[in-house]
């Protein structure tokens, strides 16, 4: 091995090969980007309300307790399919009402139960948040999660 694979050959393989994989990866990324925009998330328009909802989601760092599409913290339930779980995926008004009621009831204060904080969220933002969660829920996630429990 020592004669065939010299240090400079090993170095060239490293640089050349890496460049090759970077190029392939970039090409697949471009394709995936288009696929997301045109197919997997195209089921519901990306409205200003959805965008606002995403901002609200980020402002309160919900991701550091919950998972969303299985990513985030493992302290609180999956929310990528919460609108399905609540049965309001296709009902904007119902989604807003049930989410609003839920958020206003936190923290529950139940001893020995994990607590969700109270957040100051106005009506427009709450509607956005509900739309954002419905938008996320309609994404084509290759049938994940396996069931409604998330």
């Amino acid at each position, binding site marked *: 091995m020592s004669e065939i*694979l*010299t*240090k400079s050959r*090993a*170095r060239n*393989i*490293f640089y050349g*090969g*890496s460049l090759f*994989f970077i190029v*392939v*990866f970039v090409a*697949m990324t471009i394709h*995936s*980007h288009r*696929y*997301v*925009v045109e197919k*997997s*998330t195209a089921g519901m328009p*990306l409205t200003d309300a*959805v965008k606002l909802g*995403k901002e609200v*989601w*980020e*402002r309160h*760092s*919900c*991701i*550091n*307790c919950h*998972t969303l*599409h*299985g*990513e*985030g*913290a*493992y*302290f609180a*339930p*999956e929310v990528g399919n919460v609108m399905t779980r609540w049965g309001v995926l296709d009902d904007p008004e119902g989604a807003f009402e049930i989410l609003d009621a839920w958020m206003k009831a936190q*923290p529950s204060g139940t001893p*020995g*139960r*994990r*607590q969700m*904080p*109270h957040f100051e969220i106005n009506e427009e933002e709450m509607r956005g948040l509900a739309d*954002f969660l419905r*938008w*996320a829920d309609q*994404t084509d*996630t*290759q049938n*994940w*999660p*396996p*069931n*409604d*429990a998330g």
Partner: protein
Amino acid sequence: MKYKSQKVAYAYFIVAMGLFAIQVLGGLLAGWIYVAPNTLSELLPFNIIRMIHTNALIVWLLLGFFGAAYYLVPEESEREIYSVKLAYLQLIILVVGTLGAVASYLVGIHGGREFLEQPLWVKFGILVAAVIFLVNISLTVLAGRRTAITNVLLTGLWLLSLLWIFAFINPSNLSLDKMYWWFIVHLWVEGTWELVMASILAFLMLKLTGIDREVIEKWLYVIVATALFSGILGTGHHFYWIGLPEYWQWVGSIFSTLEVIPFFAMMSFAFIMVWKGRRNHPNKAALLWSLGSATVAFFGAGVWGFLHTLHGVNYYTHGTQVTAAHGHLAFYGAYVALNLAMFTYAMPVLRGRSPYNQVLNMCSFWLMTGGMAFMTFVLTFAGTIQTHMQRVVGDYFMDVQDQLEIFYIMRFGAGAAVVLGALLFIYSQLVPQREIVEPGNDAVVPESGQA
């Protein structure tokens, strides 16, 4: 110390160890909230504590890498660092940014992408610090002797800094947001950081075992080649269920399985070098940490990573405590232990003393490593039960969590051992015991003659 400017590393290592303490204390508190959920729930909720825990981790690991670079580049390039002032300026920017970030988390101002919660001004600060660092180190390397170790280290550091650009790209389309988010998170720990890890490990092996440089450097290129060839397309193992095309299930499964190879190679490399090496270096603790790092990285990243990386398995385990188990052992083995190996090696030199207090340091190794291993086991059990109850049977999340309490209690115990180990480590590095007083002369430090 051969070069005066290596001293810069000392300041980096001190700050890094301070943040390490904050990180594990934050983790312990987060673990306690799992056991007693009403703790601080209104004052300092779980999400804020978790942010501090994970952000402190990333920042101290990076500070450790920067410090390691400032320590080893002069020796490799055979010259002083281009500008010591710039190096301290970079550190000050990073410290101000870190303190600013923690303060703003505590008052509830933060972003909402996991690990990238820093306020925008802090993200810019990190960018500026990275640019200063790259300029400073690159000018040093270009002016001096070129070695494979500095080549690979620099390639890793340049690429990881470039990827930081994605911290500023946050599409309003959630699936795109997630895809680009992984460009940082995955391509750091399973790509660019592996280059940094491999080159630091190679440097330590060179110093500790006395093996021929040619042999070590060839290995180094082979290892980092397998890391990037597998790791880049391996990103696909995060693209299964977030709205991306189905082909990632195959690409991700195959290439991320190959990601085990570089970790196996690093472990083999470390052991073979030690067996073949002739040098009997007095810093036994540094050797223990180096071998420990390579081994635990193989188990944490390689074995525990493979455990849930095939898409058929990941469909069920995705986002459960199995992920948390893997994340902990992988980060600990690959990056925490590696940094601690470098600190253990360099601190006695930087402080101008012979290796000292080895026993305490080695105790801290076993305490921390034992604690992290136990934490990984209990979280894996918890995750297995969770996967079955929640993903297969379909029980509701909160009901399942109630059944897992015993594991969370044990995780807290394991965490307490880790915290003790971490504090012991810091103590053994900083508090002098049986100090060997030398007349301010580098020549008597055992490192100097060698290299």
